[in-house]
């Protein structure tokens, strides 16, 4: 079980963080470190692509919430790309759909973060 993190810069201020694999109590520190490095570098607008994420638990949600909290302190945003019904369901149950922007494609998430 692992998580792969791929960060892509764009023409604008937004970086795309593509995650692939499973985000749980074991792998979420890697995601936290990746988001932390970006935010430390002054990247405050993030699109986090969860399309290749097969599984996420509350520790993974906690990392995303922590990232959102940090970028908001700088007027930034975190938009998510997610179409997996099971993962969307977890955001629904926890009410996090009201906190994150959740989009069906990177393009839509990018447009929303401009």
């Amino acid at each position, binding site marked *: *079980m692992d998580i792969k993190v791929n960060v892509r810069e764009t023409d604008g201020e937004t970086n795309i963080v593509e995650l692939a694999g*499973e985000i*749980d*109590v*074991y792998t979420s520190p890697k995601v*936290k470190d990746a988001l*932390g490095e970006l935010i430390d570098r002054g990247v405050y607008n993030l699109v986090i692509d969860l399309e290749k994420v097969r*599984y996420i*638990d*509350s*520790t993974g*949600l*906690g990392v995303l*919430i*922590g990232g959102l*909290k*940090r970028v908001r302190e700088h007027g930034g945003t975190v938009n998510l790309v997610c179409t997996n*019904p*099971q993962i969307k*369901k*977890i955001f629904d*149950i*926890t009410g996090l759909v009201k906190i994150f922007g959740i989009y069906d494609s990177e393009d839509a998430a990018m447009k929303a973060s401009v």
Partner: protein
Amino acid sequence: MTANPPERATVESVELRIPRKAEWVAVARLAVAAIASRMRFTIEEIEDVKLAVAEACTNAIQSADGADQIEILCETDDTQLRVTVANRSGSGVAIAPPPLAEDEVRIDGLGVFLIRSLMDDVEYDAGPETGTRLVMIKRLAS
């Protein structure tokens, strides 16, 4: 003439013991998902069980002192899957999880909230003899 008593469902059980380490939680959730898939649960229900078990194991890792093992007992019958996640700590007293870094967000309760949302019945207890113990049930649709 007396009525025959109702037949009792046969309970089958599987027990798994994992080290109290984060890297083993995936093994527990996949094992229980495999058990759930032998029953009549839908794929969505199996995913619910998988997440609930992982949250219970994570809770056991983060909240108990002394224990070095987590026990997962699965009991199945024709109507339901009952999963017990327990650790037997020395004192049985749950202690506060380690302090979080400044940029982390306290999400206490989110895991338990998910378990309660995804499973049909949930019970939790902690005591000097039993350690911490979470019992959760997912019922098959009739």
